[in-house]
């Protein structure tokens, strides 16, 4: 039996293990104490990511509270992902990519018309995935807030210039998230094809939950 390299370093028992196809949504409940590993199978695949408190989904991931609390824009090993009420939701327990983005937001059909032109309006987008997944549990548009983009690179220059640039991830790189409370994880495996966030080629990612 060969050893699965994507499980390397994970402790505990695998309780969920799934490949999220390119361009697809994913929703999963992760209990406090469990660990979610996201594997960037083919490299430079942005994983757009939201969190809701399972007990009260008006409490949700807050990019602003997270970056303010750590005084830094980039999400690195040790970063505590905080809610809009300032509580820890998950912690980045380990990451083989230096840092991840939380200011770039999610692509949408509507913002694509601004960024690229109205010819992109019909293309699939992360907000479509977020909506589809959230609607299955009664959440809707009001519940879409600034998200995390795992494996995505958004530097900010001295004059405030920013943009999504070539990724710093690679095939097989991972991020491990330790749940500090019972959470609902909502993911869009980003379908964007107009910028480098997915290397212009959306690919599958793997989700592994251990307990």
């Amino acid at each position, binding site marked *: 039996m060969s050893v699965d390299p994507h499980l390397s370093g994970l402790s505990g028992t695998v309780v969920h293990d799934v490949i999220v196809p390119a361009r697809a949504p994913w929703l999963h409940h992760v209990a406090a104490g469990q660990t979610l590993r996201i594997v960037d199978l083919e490299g430079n695949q942005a994983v757009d990511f939201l969190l809701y408190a399972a007990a009260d989904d008006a409490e949700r991931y807050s990019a*602003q509270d997270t970056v*303010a609390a750590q005084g830094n824009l980039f999400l690195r090993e040790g970063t505590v992902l905080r809610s809009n009420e300032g509580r820890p939701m998950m912690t980045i327990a380990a990451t083989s990519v230096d840092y991840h983005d939380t*200011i770039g937001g999610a692509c949408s059909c509507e*913002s694509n018309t*601004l*960024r690229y032109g109205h010819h992109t309006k019909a293309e699939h987008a992360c907000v479509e995935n977020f909506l589809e997944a959230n609607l299955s549990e009664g959440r809707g548009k009001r519940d879409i807030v*600034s998200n995390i983009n795992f494996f995505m690179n958004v530097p900010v220059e*001295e004059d*405030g210039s920013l943009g999504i640039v070539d990724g710093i991830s690679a095939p097989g790189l991972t991020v491990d998230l330790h749940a500090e409370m019972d959470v609902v994880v909502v993911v869009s495996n980003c379908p964007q094809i107009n910028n480098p966030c997915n290397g212009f080629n959306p690919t599958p990612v793997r989700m592994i939950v251990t307990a």
Partner: protein
Amino acid sequence: MTDILANPLAARDHARGMAGTVVEAMPVLPPVADDLPAGVPADALVWEETIAAGGYATRRLSRGSRLRLIDLKGDACASLLIFNAEMPTERLNIADTVKVQWNAYLGQGKLLLSDMGRVLMSIMEDDAGTHDSFCGASNAATNAAKYGSGDNSGPHPNGRDRFLLGAAKHGLQRRDVHPCVTLFKGARIEPDGAIVPQIGPFQPGRTMVLRAEMDVIVVIANCPHVLDPRTDWTVTPLRATAWRGPVTPVDDPIRNATPEGLRAFENVEDYFRR
């Protein structure tokens, strides 16, 4: 109970006796402002209010309205939520605001974009230059940690709880309090991602003028910046003035400044094509 208020009519007279009281932070009704820009008629004024240190205010503004904010004493901190008044599920999207404009630092000419690819408000004038699109507002937990309390009912109110009350006045809920921008207090980013807050205090009277590009609800919370390094809870009053103005014409320089921004205006114009 004092003797004089022992019956309803005495209580009525006591209450009526307060009429005409003037305090630092209050609305003026009907609005009066002796410093409107040249060419703005007095009867175009729609809102005049000084927002208390630690207070909040909210207002529905029609498309074309100008909203002037003045940091009266140099230590105001205006955290701002914006909704499409007609359909409040559409609201300010700070990620799209910085991403679409390829820049994170707000100032004159910048647009505040919704999550529907439209421009909610634009910044017509800004002599402050220190604004924050990253850190958001304080919350009960951050104020409790820094000041010992953060409750609306206590001496150190926090931005999020002010937003909750302001949004609730429009029938909105906890899930509607979205990521905000903060005006007059800044945040700059170092190459390693470190956030450098620009807290001041600054010279009094710094002024911004925003233009409503759609019918909007604004909620403004004036509480200390979440990264204010001072141990004392410190903030000063904020003046808000608004007047009616023309809808942005097709030759407007802010409308036409960038291809991305132009498409945001075109999406607004398409929304109102009905």
